[in-house]
């Protein structure tokens, strides 16, 4: 007897479960969470805090806020940040001052932990929300964050 009741219960519970899937099938428009990526690139908005990659914002005079204090380089656990710096003559004071030559960022080694941005005393580096980082050659993932010819904004001291 239990053989037949098992079959009956099996079909009954199967139909109970299928009523849920059937319900979603009939009302599929209402609760759809699927996004049509990459067709929705224009409208896709990432959250403000999303960690895509590290960038260094420059203003219209091609000036950044990095003083070359190397806090980010020390804070980084993976060696993703390398700073090449030099002491150059400051035209305003006439004294020698530490300035960055190149702020090199190895995106391929970065684990997006955010410790460099926490450590920066002058907010020179921030997160960008770009997440499409695939390239054909690994060397393209090594980036120089400061633009050519840029200099530090006046009045930024660490």
């Amino acid at each position, binding site marked *: 007897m239990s053989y037949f009741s*098992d079959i009956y*219960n*099996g079909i009954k*519970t*199967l139909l*109970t*479960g299928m009523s*849920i*899937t059937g319900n979603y099938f009939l009302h599929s428009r209402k609760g759809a*969470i699927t996004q049509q990526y990459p067709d929705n690139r224009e409208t896709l908005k990432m*959250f403000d*805090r*999303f*960690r895509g990659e590290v960038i260094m914002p420059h203003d219209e005079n091609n000036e950044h806020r990095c003083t070359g204090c190397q806090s980010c380089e020390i*804070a980084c*656990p993976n060696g993703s940040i390398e700073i090449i710096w030099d002491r150059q003559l400051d035209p305003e004071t006439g004294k020698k001052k530490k300035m960055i030559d190149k702020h090199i960022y190895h995106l391929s080694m970065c*684990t*997006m*932990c*955010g*410790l460099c941005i*926490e450590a920066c005393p002058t907010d020179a580096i921030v*997160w960008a929300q770009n997440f499409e980082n695939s390239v054909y050659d690994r060397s393209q993932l090594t980036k120089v964050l400061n633009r050519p010819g840029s200099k530090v904004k006046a009045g930024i001291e660490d």
Partner: protein
Amino acid sequence: METVTEITTRNFKSQEYFINMGPQHPATHGVLRLVLTIDGEIIKKVEPDLGYIHRSIEKMSERDSYQQIVHLTDRMDYLSSHINNEAVCLAVENALQLEIPDRVKVIRTIISELTRIASHTLWWGVMGMDVGALTTYFYGFRDREMINDIFEETCGARLTMNYNAPGGLMFDIHPNFVQRVKDFIAHFKTKLPEYDRLLTGNVIFQKRTKGVGILTKEDAISFGASGPVGRASGYSCDVRKHHPYSAYDRVQFNEILDTEGDTFARYRVRVQEMWESMSIIEQLIDNIPEGEYKVKTNAVIKLPKGEFYQKVETARGELGVYIISTGTKNPYRIKFRSPGFSNLSLLNHITVGGKIGDLVATMATLDLVIPDIDR
């Protein structure tokens, strides 16, 4: 010269042979290799072979400062990354005897419980998929997506969040956080009964799981099982209850215990835990205390000389962090006691004598995360 009868008896004789399950088997959820000794379909022995995803996180931690260790623990049990971070932070804070603000404690607890729900929904979907019900996978991931959005908005990442830092949090919660969590709780309360109707009540699923992979209470204790695996055997081992940390001492919740110890009991314990986690979040979300989100610590954290241990309850069980410090800015030795490793060690004990299909169902409810086992 062999006769025909001799050849046939030799070929059809019962004989044992080895078969590799993994490292690329879909039911092992990662790079776990199981060397099975089987006789036909009957399992004689299960030997896990580890090392495929070993990254030497413990050794790397000896190189790093205490702030930098935290982000490595994201990569151990990636489904409960926030709880792993919390374990290291609590160990460092206890060693420094820092007074942590209430706001930090409450936020940490809420996010830990959200992580637990996210981990259990993923497990539920994958568990169904392992025993042949693909639909559960999509429903589990649909509800987990809402939690991932909350994490992405507040912490900046969906999985490897690194939101904790020794002394508090990296930054304050997002203004939308409270509303989003409330929306999720309201949404999930209507969806969790659907989970039961879809899978728990299904007779085919019950036939696959009831009486399979039975773990007794004595074995659970002697193998060091923890988390839902231990609690399904009646072993009361919830760290949140017995050694409360963060804000767990100020909320009311039940420790879910079961006595059967089989695969279905482990399934039931996890589904019930999602209800408990929701109740914990509901108790805390309305009154997050005002205050600082971080205590000021030195830029270079130096622990006093000595040994420090902190355990927390992750979605899989008890995670222990053991730090030996010699007074420098790096730990002399750091050891993680991960729940997955102990839970894997009892796999051979509870699956011997069963079928290969039972092994898949049992392994699904052990909820193994391989990077947690290998580290």
